[in-house]
């Protein structure tokens, strides 16, 4: 499966944020999106999912234009996302979140045991009362266990302790082994570099740098974009 953005524009009310983004991600590869705070990474995820309407350009799934289709349509076609903020239904229990994620009760433990300090036994707790890191882990575990053909992850490592960041990295890599494609938005550059096959650097709502994992000086090229 292939997700493609062509000249994608989006923003909030009258404020444009994305100015014509073009990129693609396919099943079986990890594409890292990096960029400083406020450049529009989260906005890109929302526009790709369709929770934020595109003001220009196109979103295509396997070549089919889904720009005007609702998020649920894209999800049913194989796209999945974990959001940076409000990744779970905080008012609902952990178990209900898993049911809504499409997991039958018999597989809940697979999701809950994805990280150590297992969340199992927390099924009846309201998701909003999990710690920030626990919420992040649960949301990431849902996306990974779903084995969706394409997964968008908006800063999944934010707020995780180092050992869990490592584990998250191994889970994302194994999702790729199992055929999922991942669009990984990541501030943690070391993690992004360990995982990604390709890189896209955003600045002020535009793609300013692209490269492959094996390219010469790729680290310096990305790092230079992020420091200033």
């Amino acid at each position, binding site marked *: 499966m292939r997700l493609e953005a062509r000249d994608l524009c989006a923003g909030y009310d009258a404020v444009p944020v994305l100015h014509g983004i073009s990129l693609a991600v396919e099943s079986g590869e990890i594409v890292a999106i990096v960029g400083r705070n406020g450049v529009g990474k989260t906005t890109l995820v929302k526009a790709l*999912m*369709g*929770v934020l309407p595109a003001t220009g350009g196109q979103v295509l799934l396997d070549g089919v234009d889904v720009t005007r289709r*609702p*998020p*649920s349509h894209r*999800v*049913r076609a194989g796209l*999945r*996302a974990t*959001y940076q903020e*409000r*990744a*779970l*239904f*905080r*008012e*609902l229990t952990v178990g*209900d979140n898993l*049911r*809504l*994620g*499409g997991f039958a009760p018999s597989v809940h433990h697979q999701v809950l045991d994805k990280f150590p300090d297992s969340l199992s036994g927390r099924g009846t707790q*309201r998701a*909003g009362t999990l710690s920030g890191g626990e919420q992040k882990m649960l949301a990431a575990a849902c996306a990974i266990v779903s084995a969706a053909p394409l997964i968008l992850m908006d800063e999944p490592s934010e707020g995780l302790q180092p050992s869990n960041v490592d584990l998250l990295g191994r889970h994302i890599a194994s999702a790729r082994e199992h055929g999922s494609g991942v669009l990984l938005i990541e501030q943690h550059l070391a993690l992004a570099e360990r995982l990604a096959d390709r890189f896209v650097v955003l600045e002020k709502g535009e793609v300013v740098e692209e490269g492959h994992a094996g390219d010469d000086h790729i680290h310096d090229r990305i790092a230079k974009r992020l420091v200033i």
Partner: protein
Amino acid sequence: MSRTTDTTWRRRLNALTLELLNGLSLFATLAIVALGLGITFGLMGVINLAHGEFIMVGAYVAFVVHEAGWSHWVSVPLAAGVLFVLGAVIEVILIRRIYRKPELTILATFGLSIVLRQLAELVFSKDFQSVPNPVPGATEALGVLFPTYRYILVAVALGTVVVTLLGFTRSKFGLVVRAIVADRDLAESAGIRTGVTNVLAFGLGAASAGVAGALVAPLGAVEPNLGLSYLPSAFLVVIVGGFSRLWGVLVGALVVAVVQTTLIHYYDAVWALIASLVLAVVMLQMRRSSVAGATA
């Protein structure tokens, strides 16, 4: 001597039985009247001031069925169907634009209630119409005579309520509706077709009001303002029963029925109404603080 005490005791017991049956009938009526509001207001968060008019339309369906010479029992499923379609259409042209905007919802559904009353007046006039009792007479049970139709009303109303509640809780549907209210974007991102779900849920809420209307039609006059008398109790039941679980409708109906029956018995209807309102205010305060505590 002992014979007199015996009959006194018996008379008291029979009076109590009658009160209990009246209470049961009130409980069932409140439950079916509030069921739809439990869905649209309790679950979906829509302050639907036209809920009473949905009941009124259901009662007119029963009247039309009677005029057509059909059995009253046709009107129960027919009212459900008519109101489902009406509710679905209203969701699409009106409610869909005003989710999460309570002030607009109050204005819009208040306007809708006026429109529906005026339409009823236009079609059927202001006259009080009557739907004859399909099962006249009384049944003797537990030593007292009680109208047979009331027994049937209790069975049909509670049956409808329980089946609907089971449908909502056993299937994923109720959870999905709650998820949409909690976060529509996130629900869409979980693959939920929120538009379709909202139409279905609002339609079902209206449909159950239709059932209520068809059931209460033989109990009194069918007229354009019929809904006005049911709206406050419906809100009362939902508020007392709480919003977090749809089963609260049954709890709320029970509490309100017990309070009203007891107070009407010992005092009068005015006191029953005052007590009910106090109950609603207290419950709202308690719910507000528990919600605030939970989200803090």
